[in-house]
């Protein structure tokens, strides 16, 4: 067994520097690497390029890094829940590359799986395809999109073991598995870290080979963005 555990988040994020490109898992605030984001704030690293489907809300998730002006560029599909984000974008302080959600996911998976690029129909004929190669296959038009290149990938899983094997829960899975192994270093934080052998190999979502470092996360807030409920009859 190749051991991937590190003692804490400080050790897990060793090597993060100004100007790096960092992938972060999560959809909205669901399944975000809360511990790693807090550590990025504490480290005060700047000029980051962040690849993340969303940009958090004003006071949680990536919004915390935006408040401290640590992000130079965001690559996301939807950024509608964050006023500070909108302000920085409209004033030109923050560069934003909006990418269709499926393309964003595939650019991660391509990096993970060793594909330099792929063709997708998404965005053909729109401003997303400007300056990109397009090609016809079987009478339909496609856009060439390139795999991401990132320094760190920060993901959150439900359970993990010493070997770096991961299991996700519910829709907190989202972009997290696609980002594992898609950067030079993948850091996984988990709600429950167990010894090797305790997780059933049949139940593993992401094999440890895609994970560089794993640590036991703590104090998960798991904030809900839209609490929708129905009444009991």
């Amino acid at each position, binding site marked *: 067994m190749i051991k991937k555990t590190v003692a804490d988040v400080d050790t897990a994020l060793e090597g993060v520097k100004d100007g790096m490109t960092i992938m972060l898992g999560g959809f909205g605030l669901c399944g975000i690497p809360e511990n790693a984001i807090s550590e990025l704030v504490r480290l005060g690293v700047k000029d980051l390029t962040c690849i993340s489907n969303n940009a958090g809300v004003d006071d949680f998730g990536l919004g915390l890094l935006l408040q401290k002006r640590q992000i130079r560029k965001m690559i996301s599909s*939807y950024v509608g829940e964050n006023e500070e984000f909108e302000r920085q974008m409209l004033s030109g302080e923050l560069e934003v590359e909006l990418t269709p959600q499926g393309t964003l996911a595939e650019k991660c998976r391509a990096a993970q799986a060793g594909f330099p690029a792929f063709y997708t129909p998404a965005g053909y004929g*729109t401003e997303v395809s400007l300056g990109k190669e397009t090609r016809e296959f079987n009478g339909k038009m496609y856009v060439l999109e390139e795999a991401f290149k990132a320094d760190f990938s920060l993901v959150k899983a439900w359970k993990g073991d010493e070997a770096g094997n991961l299991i996700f829960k519910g829709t907190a899975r989202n972009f997290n598995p696609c980002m594992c192994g898609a950067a030079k270093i993948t850091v996984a934080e988990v709600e429950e870290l167990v010894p090797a052998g305790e997780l059933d190999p049949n139940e593993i979502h992401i094999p440890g080979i895609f994970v560089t470092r794993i640590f036991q996360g703590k104090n998960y807030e798991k904030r809900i*963005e839209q609490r929708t409920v129905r009444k009991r009859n």
Partner: protein
Amino acid sequence: MLDKNGIAKRIAREVKDGYYVNLGIGIPTLVANFVRDDISVEFQSENGVLGMGPFPFEGEEDADIINAGKQTITTLPGASFFDSATSFGMIRGQHVDLTILGAMEVAENGDIANWKIPGKMVKGMGGAMDLVASAENIIVAMMHTNRAGESKLLKRCTLPLTGVQCVKKIVTNLAVLEVTSEGFRLLERAPGVSVETIREATEGALIVEGDIPEMQF
């Protein structure tokens, strides 16, 4: 003239037994409330769930189980969770039978714009571009005119496009229309709405052939 629930109720009739359906945010979300309960349908949410159920009972919300609108949801028997790349594999691979989404503008050639108003609103396209570029069967749910009373069914879209020549059918508060090579073909009128009212509210080419029936629910 229909309200938002009326539009959703009419669209629900387009949902057939055995369909996997992706519902966008807004009016499309309401469609789930009106689907007949004697047919089998599974709702997909692009953040990674198939077999979405109703909102949870108070106190049973789970932060790890949400839909693409970031609302807490439940799952039904037979549901599954998956990652974002797999989710869009279902969409691009045309395994999802029907996509229902909102729009700011639709053009008579089937172009759609629903993600950006330059200088005013820049929230992003989310999964809309993947959905419209891939789905075989796309229904747009929207009001026929905007808040200023201007038509949303145009000769050409004025806003940045989400996708080209992809919309097949449109259900508005006034009518059901089909996109054809000649323009918007009027299929049905909302209860009490005249063809003349629909014509006045439609900027793009409107094709009216024979008697146009009122919508049935």
